[in-house]
C-alpha cells in the first residue's frame, strides 16, 4: 500500500453482531437486509433478527417507534442472531435508549448526532443528553452527523424534496458500516437500481448517500480500524439466504409439485404470516392458487373446500387466526381431508404482540378445539427447516388423511440463514391415490379405513359412481352416514386418535446432541433451537455432561422420546411460553421437568440458557 494513505488497520474477526436501530420511518429493516444480503453473498454465515413495532407508524422518535435489525455474521456455523450487539448504529436517541440494555460494555456505537436534539431526547425520555452525561462511558462512541453529511452529499440531486433527501440517510449509515466491515457496495447499488427503476433521482440520491457514507469512513480520522469477517466454513454446497416464511412457501409448493397437484393457499393477511402468502402469490405458473379470503374463517373454509376438490391445500396464519379457524379445523378433522395449517406464532394472548416472537400456541393447537380433536403438530427448528417440515406435513397429511399443523414463529419466519439449496430431484415424490372404483359394491364407503394407516379414501367430486356426502355431524364407520349411536361415536373418536398416533410409525426417531445419558437433558422445540444448541455446546465445552434434544414432532411424539427422557437425571425445558411443552411432557411421560420460561417477545439468549445449565450442574 502507498505510504500517503493513512494507516488503517484491518482486523480479522471470527464473528460480529451488528444492530441497526432507528425510527420506524428510518428504513432500518431495509438497511439491515441489504447488509445481510451482502454478507451472505460474500460467504459469511448469517443469522438475523428483525425487530419492528406493530404499528406501521408509531409516533416518530419515541421508544415505541424504534425499529431494529440485528445481524450476526460469522466465519463459522452460527445458529442465533447473537446475544449482545458488538456494534450499534443508533439513528436517534430512542434507538439508543431501546438498545443500550442489550449492549456489551466496550461495544461500539455509531451515533447520528444530528438526531440528538432537545425534542428527540425528550421523546426518548432522556433528561440529559447521554452523549455528554457519562451514560456512554463504557462504550466506544463514534459521533457522526449523519443527517448533515448526507444532506451535503445528496443536496444537489435535482428533483428531491428536503424530506426525500433525508430519507436516504439510512444509505449513508449503511455505506459507513460497509466501509468499517470492508464490504462491497455493489449488490446494494444493483438493488437500488432495480428497486427505483423509474425514479432516477432516487437512484442517484441513494447511491450517492451510500458512497458518501463509505468515503466518510475512508477519510475521517475517527475510524482507525476496519474489520473483516472471513467467509464461513460452511459445508461444501450451493447456498442461498432464506427466511422461515420463504422456506415455508417453497416447501408447500414443492410438496404440491411432488404430488403432481396444484397448490391452493387460502389466507387472510396477518402478521407475521403474510409473507408466506406474498411468496406464493407470484407462483401461478406452478399452479399455485393463492386466495386472499375475507377473513380467517373463510380462508380455512376455502382451504377445506379445495382439499375436498382434490388439490393440495394449505393455509397460513398466526395464533389469533387459528382461534378463528378452530371450528373449521375441527370440521376438517371430521371430514378427514389432507391439508396443512401453518401457525406462525406471535406474542399473545388476544392481539398481543403481533411482531414479537413467542411459542405460546402449542397448547392451543393441541387442545384448542371442542371435542376430542387430535391433530398432528410439527415444529421446524430453523428457518431452513420450514422447507422440510412443509413437505413433511403434506406427507403426513396424506397418510393420515388429516389436517397437519406446523408451528413456526415470528423469529423463524423473519430470521434468515444460509440454506443449502436442495436438489429437487432428490426429494421423494408424494404418492396420491384417488379411488375410481367403489370399495363397497353398490354403495361407496367413504369412511372405510386403510387397515394400516387408518386413513380413509380420498374420493373426489368428478369421479362417477363415488358420489358421497360428508359433514361435521358424527357418523357411522365405513358408510359415514350420520349417526349418534353410542358405539359409533366411540369408535370414530378412537379411530381419529389412532390414525394420528400411528404417524409415529413413520416419523424419525428423536436424536440427541451430546451424551446419550447423564446429568441433564435440555429439551426444546421450534425456533429456540439455535440458542439451546449453542448453550448446550458451550456447557459441554465447560465439561458438563449435558445433552440437547430438539423435538420436531410434537404430536405424535417420536416413539423413543420416553426412553430418552429416562436416561437423564434431570430435564430442563426452555420455552418462550410459561411451560407448555413441560406440561405435555409431564402429562405424557409422568416425568418431572424443570421449566425455563420467558415471554419477553424476544428469543432466548444463549447466555440465559447457559446460566441455567451451569446453575443446575453446580447444584447437582
Amino acid at each position, binding site marked *: 500500500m502507498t505510504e500517503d494513505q493513512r494507516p488503517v488497520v484491518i482486523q480479522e474477526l471470527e464473528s460480529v453482531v451488528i444492530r441497526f436501530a432507528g425510527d420506524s420511518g428510518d428504513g432500518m429493516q431495509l438497511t439491515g437486509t441489504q447488509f445481510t444480503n451482502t454478507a451472505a453473498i460474500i460467504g459469511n454465515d448469517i443469522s438475523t433478527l428483525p425487530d419492528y413495532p406493530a404499528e406501521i407508524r408509531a409516533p416518530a422518535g419515541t421508544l415505541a417507534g424504534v425499529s431494529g435489525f440485528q445481524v450476526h455474521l460469522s466465519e463459522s456455523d452460527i445458529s442465533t442472531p447473537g446475544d449482545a450487539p458488538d456494534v450499534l448504529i443508533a439513528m436517534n436517541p430512542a434507538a439508543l435508549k431501546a438498545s443500550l440494555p442489550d449492549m456489551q460494555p466496550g461495544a461500539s456505537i455509531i451515533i447520528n448526532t444530528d438526531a440528538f436534539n432537545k425534542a428527540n431526547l425528550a421523546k426518548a425520555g432522556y433528561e440529559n443528553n447521554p452523549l455528554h452525561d457519562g451514560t456512554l462511558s463504557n462504550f466506544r462512541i463514534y459521533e457522526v452527523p449523519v443527517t448533515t453529511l448526507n444532506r451535503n452529499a445528496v443536496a444537489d440531486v435535482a428533483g428531491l424534496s428536503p424530506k426525500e433527501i433525508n430519507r436516504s440517510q439510512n444509505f449513508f449509515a449503511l455505506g459507513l458500516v460497509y466501509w468499517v466491515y470492508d464490504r462491497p457496495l455493489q449488490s446494494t447499488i444493483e438493488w437500488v437500481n432495480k428497486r427505483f427503476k423509474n425514479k432516477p433521482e432516487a437512484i442517484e440520491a441513494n447511491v450517492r448517500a451510500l458512497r458518501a457514507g463509505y468515503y466518510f469512513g475512508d477519510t475521517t480520522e475517527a475510524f482507525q480500524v476496519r474489520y473483516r469477517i472471513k467467509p464461513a466454513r460452511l459445508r*461444501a454446497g450451493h447456498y*442461498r439466504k432464506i427466511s422461515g416464511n420463504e422456506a415455508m412457501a417453497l416447501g408447500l409448493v414443492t410438496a404440491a409439485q411432488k404430488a403432481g397437484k396444484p397448490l391452493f393457499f387460502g389466507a387472510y393477511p396477518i402478521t407475521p404470516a403474510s409473507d408466506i402468502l406474498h411468496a406464493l402469490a407470484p407462483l401461478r405458473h406452478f399452479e399455485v392458487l393463492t386466495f386472499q379470503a375475507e377473513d380467517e374463517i373463510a380462508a380455512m373454509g376455502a382451504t377445506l373446500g379445495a382439499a375436498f376438490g382434490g388439490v393440495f391445500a394449505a393455509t397460513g396464519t398466526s395464533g389469533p387466526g387459528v382461534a378463528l379457524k378452530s371450528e373449521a379445523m375441527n370440521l376438517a378433522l371430521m371430514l378427514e381431508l389432507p391439508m396443512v395449517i401453518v401457525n406462525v406464532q406471535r406474542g399473545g394472548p388476544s392481539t398481543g404482540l403481533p411482531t414479537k416472537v413467542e411459542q405460546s400456541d402449542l397448547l392451543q393447537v393441541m387442545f384448542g378445539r371442542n371435542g376430542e380433536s387430535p391433530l398432528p403438530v410439527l415444529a421446524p427448528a430453523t428457518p431452513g427447516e420450514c422447507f422440510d417440515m412443509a413437505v413433511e406435513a403434506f406427507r403426513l397429511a396424506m397418510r393420515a388423511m388429516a389436517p397437519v399443523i406446523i408451528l413456526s414463529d415470528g423469529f423463524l419466519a423473519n430470521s434468515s440463514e444460509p440454506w443449502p439449496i436442495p436438489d429437487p430431484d432428490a426429494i421423494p415424490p408424494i404418492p396420491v391415490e384417488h379411488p375410481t372404483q367403489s370399495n363397497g359394491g353398490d354403495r361407496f364407503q367413504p369412511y372405510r379405513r386403510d387397515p394400516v394407516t387408518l386413513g380413509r379414501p380420498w374420493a373426489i367430486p368428478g369421479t362417477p359412481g363415488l358420489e358421497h356426502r360428508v359433514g361435521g355431524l358424527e357418523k357411522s364407520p365405513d358408510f359415514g352416514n350420520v349417526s349418534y349411536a353410542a358405539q359409533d361415536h366411540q369408535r370414530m373418536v378412537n379411530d381419529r386418535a389412532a390414525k394420528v398416533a400411528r404417524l409415529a410409525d413413520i416419523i424419525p426417531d428423536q436424536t440427541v446432541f451430546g451424551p446419550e445419558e447423564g446429568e441433564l437433558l435440555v429439551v426444546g422445540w421450534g425456533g429456540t433451537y439455535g440458542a439451546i444448541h449453542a448453550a448446550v455446546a458451550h456447557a459441554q465445552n465447560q465439561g458438563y455432561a449435558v445433552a440437547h434434544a430438539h423435538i420436531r414432532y410434537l404430536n405424535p411424539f417420536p416413539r423413543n422420546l420416553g426412553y430418552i427422557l429416562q436416561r437423564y437425571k434431570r430435564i430442563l425445558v426452555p420455552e418462550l411460553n410459561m411451560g407448555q411443552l413441560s406440561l405435555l411432557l409431564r402429562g405424557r411421560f409422568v416425568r418431572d421437568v424443570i421449566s425455563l420460561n420467558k415471554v419477553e417477545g424476544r428469543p432466548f439468549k444463549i447466555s440465559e440458557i447457559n446460566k441455567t445449565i451451569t446453575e443446575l450442574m453446580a447444584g447437582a
Partner: protein
Amino acid sequence: MTIDTLPRLTRKDFVSDQTVRWCPGCGDYAILAQVQKVMPDLGVPKENIVFISGIGCSSRFPYYMNTYGVHSIHGRAPTLATGLKLANPELSVWVVTGDGDGLSIGGNHLVHTCRRNVDLNIILFNNRIYGLTKGQYSPTSPAGLRTKSSPMGAIEQALNPISVALAAEATFIARTVDVIQDHMGDVIQAAAAHKGVSFVEVFQNCVIFYDGAWEPFSDRGIRDDNNIYLEAGKPMVFGKNNDKGLIRTTAGFEVVTLGEQYSLADLAVHDVTSDTNAWMLSRLTYPMPMGVIYQVQRPTYNDLLWGQVAAAKTKAGASDLRALYNASDTWTVSDDGQPAQSGIKGEVPQEIDEAYFAEVMERVHANGDLIDLLSEMTIEDLDPQGPITVETSARMDNALSVMRQKDIGCLLVTSADRHLTGILTEHDLLTRVAGRVENLHEVTVAQFMTPRPTALPLDAPLVEALHLMSTQGFRHLPIVDAHNLPVGVISVRDVVRFLITAI
C-alpha cells in the same frame, strides 16, 4: 363426456338413500323435490354436481341429494364452495343456506362470495325464523315478531336478502316461492345456466315456528294478486287477471290498473341488466317481485384465477423447482478435502517459466551499471499497461472470460468505489479454483482473489518492483495512485522484456 353422450338421468338418480327428516309440511320438501327434478336437465354429469350447506334445517339438504356433498359448519358454506370451485372449475357447485346461516352468522361470506363472482349457485331458504334451534327470530324476521327470544317483539330491522345481494355485486339475483313449483324450477334452471354467482331467495314456510310467514305470496287464492312474475324485456304486468302493472315515476314504481287510463304500452319494461331497476324492485313489497330480478355478465373469479395460471405458464414456461430455489443470490462453498469437478477444465493459463526469469535476473545482477540505471528509473518509465479491473462482486465466470479474451494473467479487483481491494491471478486460479469449484457463474471474485495485495505507486523505483518479484515470487504488481485507485499493473513479462532490451 359430452352432453350428447350423457346417459339420460331422472329425478330418481338424484334421490339419496337417506330418510328425509324435516317436519311434515315443511317447505323444504317442495324445494328438494324441485331441485331433484331440475338436475337431470342441467346437462351436467351427476358426479360433477356438489351441494354444500352450512347449519340449519335447510342445511340438511346435501344428505338427501345423491351427488357429492358437504354438510359444513354454520354460515361457512360459501367459503368451502369457493375453495372447491377454484380447485376444480369443472364442477357445478351449489350452496344451500338459510336466513340465519347465510345472513346472520355467514353474512360476511355471502357478501364476499357475491362480489367475487365465483361461479356458484346459492339458494337461500328464507323462512324468517330459526327452525333448528326451535324458534328464535332471525335477521329476516319482521320487526315486532314475538318469538321465544323476543317475547315482547323483535326490535330489529330486518334485512332484505335481494337488496343485500345487489349491494354485494351479485351478477344473478332471483326470487321464488317454495310452493310455486314450476316457477321455482325455471328460476333454478336460470341460476344454473348463469355463469357467475347466482343468488336465489326462496320464500320457504316453516310450519312449526312461523307458519304462514309468506302466505300472501304463496296462497293459491291470493298470491297472483300479490306477486309480479318478472320476465326480462317484458312489460311489468301482474294480477290474477293481468289487469295491473307498474309504471316508472320519479319516486320509483307505482302500481296502476290497466284499462281506461293505462295500457300495456305505458308499463315499465323489466330491464334485467339495470341496477336502478333492480334496486327499486328489491325495495318493492306490493307486488312482490318474483323471478330473475337482475342479471349481468362479468368475468368469474374462477376464470380469472385460472386465466392468470395459464398466462403465467405461457410467460414463465414449465414449472421448474430448481430455478425457483435458485431465484435469489446464491453462492457455492467448495470442500477443500474433496476434488470437485472443475468448471474451467483446461482454461487456466499456463505457468510462467521460472527458470527463465532467474536467468535474466542473474544477468542483471552481473551488470553493475544496469543496477544503477534501474535505481534511477521509476515504474512510470516502464510505461505500465492500464489496469484491467473487476469489482469484488463480479462473477467468476465473467472474470475468467475477461482474462481469456484479453489474454492477461491477472485482474485487479476493486471495491464498488474503485479502490484496490485484491488481485486475481493465474496462481489463485490454479490453487483455489481449478478442480474445486463447479459453478463459476454462482461465485464471486471476492471469494477467490488474494486480498490486500502489495501495490506500488507510479513513482516507486523500478528496483523495488524487481526486488519484490524476485524475493516474494510476485508475477504481477498492481500500481495505484495516492488514493489507492489502480492505475496500472506490471507483470514479470513486462519487466523481463524491459531488462532484455536494457541488457
